[in-house]
């Protein structure tokens, strides 16, 4: 009798993949899209 197949891990999309506004053309997170100065404590 053959052993039942084990389901492999499911790789999800990374947060960076979907939050396109945050990622620059070089694939790095584009910090310039976040304004500075109004830090909230």
């Amino acid at each position, binding site marked *: 009798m053959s052993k039942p197949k*084990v*389901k*492999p*891990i499911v790789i999800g999309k*990374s947060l960076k993949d979907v*939050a396109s506004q*945050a990622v620059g053309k070089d694939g790095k997170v584009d910090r310039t899209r*976040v*304004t*500075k100065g109004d830090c909230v404590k």
Partner: protein
Amino acid sequence: MNYSFAFTVSKIKIGNSWILFNWLNTQNISIEDSSHPLYQMLEAGDKKVKPFEVNGFYNDFEYLRDNHFFVENQEVIRNIVRSQYLEIIDGKNISVTMMPVNQACNCRCLYCYEDHSKSGLMGDADLAVFQRFIERQDISSLRIDYFGGEPLLNIDFIKKCNEGMIALGKKRGFSLTPSSMTTNGYYLTRDNFLSLYDLRITSFQVTVDGDRENHDRYRPLTNGQGTYDVIYKNLLDIANTERNFSLTLRTNFTPKNGSKEKRIEFLEKIKSDFKGDKRFVLMPEPIGKWKDGEEYKDEMHSSFSVANALREQFQMDAEDMGLETLSMVLLCGPESHFCYASKPNDMVIYPLDEYGRLPIQKCTLEVNRKNNNVGFIDSDGQLIKNENWQKWVVDNLFVNKKCRNCFFVLNCFGNSCAYKNQSRGQTVCPREKRQEYALISRILKYISNHQ
């Protein structure tokens, strides 16, 4: 060879599935088959991981190892974190927050903590000193963020400054990183926006406090007139351009304008008017004790925990509607909660003082605190730091033991708020760290909504 789960990996069980989320790179996997060796390790709470095969293939293990879910030694992760930290604080990249009108403003927002009587327009002389300062630096990039007060009261300076720095960058071999501006939006007309955009000012933060009635009560002009209609029209006009800008739409809310009915009404209006435009990113913030005074004390949140829960609910409501929220954008990468006041390559610059110097501060919230005055740029462009500078600029990465194995360390580098670290004499964690599982659930939902 034995491996361990990297300390930046959160493990969470949702229903019958295990989820691993790696804060180092925002990658995530799920596993639902209880006969999978990884599932069994997670169920057993194993700390050590031995290489495993599934169906005769090594792929799952390799993926998890190659993407830093598993590490032979946690120092590998700490070295990645430190290398990203060093890149961010590298003196080759300077970041300044420019105060072109000091704290002067055309609005009198009920809750504002600033002293608008402290005014002063930056002009050619200020720019000349700033230029001399930059000429003294050996930099590869310069970032300028405009803040106030209301920076657009001095738009001429802003344009000259960016124009000057673009030209200087060409001459000296550095790039002017796209700038940002925090503005009340009253003067952010289409024409002004386009002229700023052409000079690389591409990110903005504008506040709309709910509906017209609420916004006009919270954010009137100095003469008491409302600002909602003008600001909202400006936003719609900007949305009608095809420029690749980013605009953080901030909403300061109280239990009154943040009630479920009010916030859904507000979000539906934004969704409808801006048609899901992803250039607009929402930022709801509960009004806290930002200033002393009687006139608004009944309006602010009485409890931090209630305010924080409401903020999270506001964000989730927006995300469920397919709208972008700043919190998700921030969590995409390193330094989401890294205080700029703590960085050695970051400073706030004020208009020239009576001695012809540009005063320097570190924090834009503690504007009226003496120890926030950390020095000045003299008329020759030389940065002169005083004894306060080192109170703000502290390398606190992994200094505290609790940071050494903290999943969130890449986001704050042990310095989420330099002011709090100083005043409390200890490393203060960002509030998000206390919400590890809730945050992952939200992130996964956000990813699923944006597939």
